[in-house]
Each structure stands twice: as C-alpha cells, then as structure tokens.
C-alpha cells in the first residue's frame, strides 16, 4: 500500500488537530466564556431588570459621556494618525525613526502613567494648574482631561493600521499624479487616501472600540464624579464595588456589545474590501 501524497508544507493529521484543538480551547476559555458569562449574568434576572439598570440616570450619563468622548477622540486621531502615517511613508526627514517610535509609545506605556502625566501637567498642583485655574479652565476631572487621556491611549490605532499600507504602496503613484499636474492636495485626496480607505476604516473602528473601553488613563483623570465624569468602564467598576451586580453586568454587557458590533463592522468591511479588490484580480 502506498502512502497518500502529502504536500511538503503539511504536517500529519494528529499534529494539525492537536494545534487546532489547542487554539480553539484557548479561544473558548479565554474569550468566548467570559463574554458569555457577562451576557448571562446581565440577563440572569431578566431583560427588564437589565434595561431598568441601564435606564438609571447616572448610567445614562455615563453612556452619553462615553459616546461624547469617542465622538471627539476618533476624528482627532483619524486626522492625526493619517497625517503621521503620510509623513512617515511618503517623505524623508530627520527624526523619522523617532516619530515611528513615538507613535508606538502609548502601546508600550501603561495607560495609568498616561493619566498621571495629564494630572501632573494640568492638575491643580500641576505645571499649568495655576495658569488654568486663573482662567477658570478645568482640564483634569472634566471632559477635556478625559478626551486628552483617551487621545493619548488610542493614538496608535489609526497610524499603525494605515502606515504599513502606505509604505507598501510606495511613492510611485503620487509621483505619477505629480507629473500629470495634480497638486499636493489633489494627489492626497484622489490617490493616497482612496488607496488606504479600507485599512483606514478598520483603524478607525479599532480606535473607536478602544476609546469607549479605555479604563486606566481615564480612571486617573476622571475623578469619578457620578453623572458628570464617569464613563461606562468607570461606572461598571463603581457599581460593582457597591455590590450592584445587576447594574454592573448590564452596563458591562452593553459595553461588550458595543465592542462586538465594532468588530463585526470591521470584519464586514474587510470582506467588502476583499471583494472589491478580489473582483479585479
């Protein structure tokens, strides 16, 4: 009996099933089960109770604040991230490596430290504290502080998703556009941006998910003023510490669902992107 032919890059069935099994096991235990537990816990005493917990004024205020922070942060990081990626991918300048490293800094530094930095700079005892107080401007323990902290933490998402795409595409198309008479703005809007649009959308969605879910940095600058500076993740913690499990899990479930919707949207976008380029291949 001759053995069935096996391609050189394929291992035996046993090895394959072991590896796949291990990956699935980790995914189920670490990702699916916790998510299911949160949803199950939220709905344990019925949908009505969960909805009532969400409809509570302080919770509604937290939801509104979270959405507001995301709405302010994401567009700013969209512009900043694209600008940074564009600079790095399409131009040569001294300090380029440093900029690449700086973009990744928020990934490397603990969010708590980011929050502390903002307190140190803008807090009452901070560097700019007296100046800000004299003008009656509240940064820390208010919306501006929340937005700053979230901006810092979510900055890499857009830049890091768009940068490799732009680098891979090189500069030839931009040069072609220039020889055809296009201005810098026309080239950017008609050539550079459309070429990265799918990656850009994915980056924006990830940025949004993180902006809504950020805890550490926001926790430091927020001050936890209920109904005023509490975002959803902070509110979950407060409710949980006060043994209001129904409310805590209801808000947690809502937050998780927002994240899942974002992921689903990203996957859908990737499908669409795959189809539009796949059709051309």
């Amino acid at each position, binding site marked *: 009996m001759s053995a069935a032919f096996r391609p050189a890059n394929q291992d035996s069935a046993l090895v394959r099933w072991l590896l796949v099994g291990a990956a699935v096991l980790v995914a189920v235990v670490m990702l699916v089960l916790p998510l299911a537990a949160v949803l199950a816990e939220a709905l344990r005493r019925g949908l009505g109770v969960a909805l009532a917990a969400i409809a509570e004024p302080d919770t509604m205020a937290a939801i509104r604040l979270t959405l507001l922070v995301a709405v302010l942060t994401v567009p700013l990081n969209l512009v900043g991230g694209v600008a940074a990626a564009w600079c790095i991918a399409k131009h040569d300048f001294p300090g380029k490596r440093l900029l690449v490293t700086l973009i990744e800094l928020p990934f490397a530094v603990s969010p708590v430290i980011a929050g502390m930095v903002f307190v140190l700079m803008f807090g009452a005892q901070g560097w700019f504290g007296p100046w800000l107080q004299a003008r009656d401007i509240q940064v820390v323990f208010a919306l501006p502080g929340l937005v700053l902290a979230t901006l810092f933490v979510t900055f890499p998402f857009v830049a890091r998703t768009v940068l490799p795409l732009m680098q891979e595409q090189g500069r*030839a198309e931009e*040069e072609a*556009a220039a*020889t*055809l*008479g296009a201005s810098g703005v026309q080239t950017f809007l*008609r050539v550079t941006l459309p*070429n990265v649009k799918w990656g850009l959308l994915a980056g924006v969605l990830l940025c949004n998910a993180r902006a809504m879910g950020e805890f550490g940095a926001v926790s430091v600058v927020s001050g936890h003023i209920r109904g005023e500076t509490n975002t959803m993740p902070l509110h979950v913690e407060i409710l949980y510490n006060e043994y209001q499990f129904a409310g805590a899990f209801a808000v947690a479930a809502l937050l998780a669902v927002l994240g899942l919707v974002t992921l689903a949207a990203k996957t859908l976008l990737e499908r669409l992107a795959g189809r539009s*380029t796949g059709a051309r291949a």
Partner: protein
Amino acid sequence: MTVEVQGIVRRFGATAALEGVSLSVREGEFIALLGPSGSGKTTLLRILAGLEGTDAGVVRVGGRDLTGVPARERGIGMVFQNYALFRHMTVFDNIAFGLRVRAQKPHHSEIATRVRRLLELVQVPELETRYPEQCSGGQRQRVALARALAIEPRLLLLDEPFSALDALVRKDVRRWLRGLHDGLGITSVLVTHDQEEAMELADRIAVMERGRIVQFDTAETLLRAPATAFVAGFVGEAARLPCTVRGGVAHFDPLPMTPLRAALPDGPATAFVRPHDIVARSGDGAAKVRLVRQEDQAPNRLVVQAGDVVLDATSGPGEVFARGQACRLTLRGGHVFSAAGGSTRAQPLAAAMAS
C-alpha cells in the same frame, strides 16, 4: 521640444549619482539613456521630470529653464517603470486624471471624447471600464502611455517601459512605440539597460557609466567608433581580449589568435572583437569548437574555446564544423584600447589572412 542639460550634478549623501552630465536633444528626436544599473540614467530622467532635485546644473526644455519648476507644472509626460497606474481607478479614470486635476477642467463630455481617442491611439478601447489589476502587462503599458499622453506633453519620458513585458511581446511593442513617436512628433527620452532596445528605438544613444555620459551618438557610430573601452564592451556584442602591443602590433599570446595591426604605444592593451571578426577555420589549431549554433539572424555562429577563454565566433566561408573539432582562429579586426590611453581600429597584418 528640445532638451538642454548642462553640467548636472546630483549626490545622494557621499555618493554621486550624476557627476556633471550634459546632453542636448533635438526637437522630435528619440534618444535613449543606456547604461548598467547604477549608472545614473534613471536619476537623470527623474531630474528631467522634476521628481528629483539637482545639486548643480541647468535643465532647459523648449528653451525654458526648469530650475525650481515643480513636476506638476512641467507638462512633461512620464511612463514609469511598472507603470504606477492608480490601482483604485478604472483605465478610463486613470487616463482622465491629468485632465480632471486641471484648474480649468474640461467638460466631462470633452474628457470622455479625449480619453476614448487616446484609448484608440494605444489600441485598447476595450479596457475602458477595467481596473489595472485586470489588465495584462502589455495592456498596462499602453494605458500608462495613454495616461501620460493625455496632458499632451511635448516631451515624453520612458523609464524602462519594456522591462515588465514578455520577450515575444517586446519587439512588437517597440516598433509600435517608435511609430507612435513619429506620428505625434514629440521628443522622447528612453531609459534602458537593454542595448538592443536602445538601438532599435532611438535616433541617438547616450551611453552612461558611473554618473557620466561617456558617448552620445547614433548606434552605428557607437559600434564603429566606440569612445572608450566601456562603450566598446557594453554596446554591441564583443569579446574582451587582453593583449600586448609591440611595435604597432597587438599580440594575443598565450591565446591562439592571429595578431592585429594597432598603431598604439607599446604596452598592455585590451581588444574588443566582435564575433563576425573572429573567424574559425578547420585545421590543426589550438582552439576547439564547443557549440555550433543555428540562428536565422546570425548564420555560421560558433562558440569556441581558446585556452581558458570561451568566445562567440563565426565559421569561415564554406566551413562546416562539428562539436569538439579543432580549429584555428583568425582575427579580422577590432578596437584596441591601450592601458596608457588612446585607442585605434585594428586591422589584420596581411590582407590575405582576412579573406
């Protein structure tokens, strides 16, 4: 449009890509920049297009000094290596791009008419709604050409435009491109490392070596009177043979070849000899036939081994060789470059030996 290049210097860090290049192209002329990779030919083309700056020198196109004029205001058409088509646009939109970005944008019906006329010109009207990824290499090249021609340039720059094409397609496309150039009456500058391509397409060829133009002449002159040893070796098909000049005669020993008359000072030299000037005759010689080639364009071609050198040669009149057969080699001429400087067209010692 005429092109005047004077004393262009371009450095990248410590290395000089161009070291004082001057070039003068006539209106309606098709010239080629020919050289090995790293010779600076693409850098020169990019400087003409305005995509690269200069450290010194002047570029004038149609009499106008282009120093400081950005690429987008030059109105020079360029076909990029690998074409650089806009991948997210259809062929139609690619070609229309140069018209749509104008300050005074033509009416869209006018744009459509012109794009269709260009597609007819490059003979691919059926591609209009396709994306670049759906086109073959040859089709992309035509689209890239149509896109460059859409802005009605008087000067067209072509950066290795045939390198992505199959060898079979290449020859046809070359002839077609030359016809197009003649029909439009534009000036064209082609960058290539392929001498066959340069010779077939260009009126004159600028041979580049390490950031300099070493000779700018017609193909015929480059072959007949190469200015330097580099040109003699790079253009045309020539064997490079070390020799020694003694009393006006170049000797090739220990290679088993007849000497050549070369009016040069005594000393070491290098001879460049074309295959049709290396004649093999049957008989008890020190050379040996390695291969007999049958080619339409070059009949009687042989590959012979002389000492440790393998050469392309030609069989003498009426001679038929078999592989492995011994033979004698006679040289009918060549270009000899003295190591001390100076060169000459070498002749056989006796007319009888060349017949």
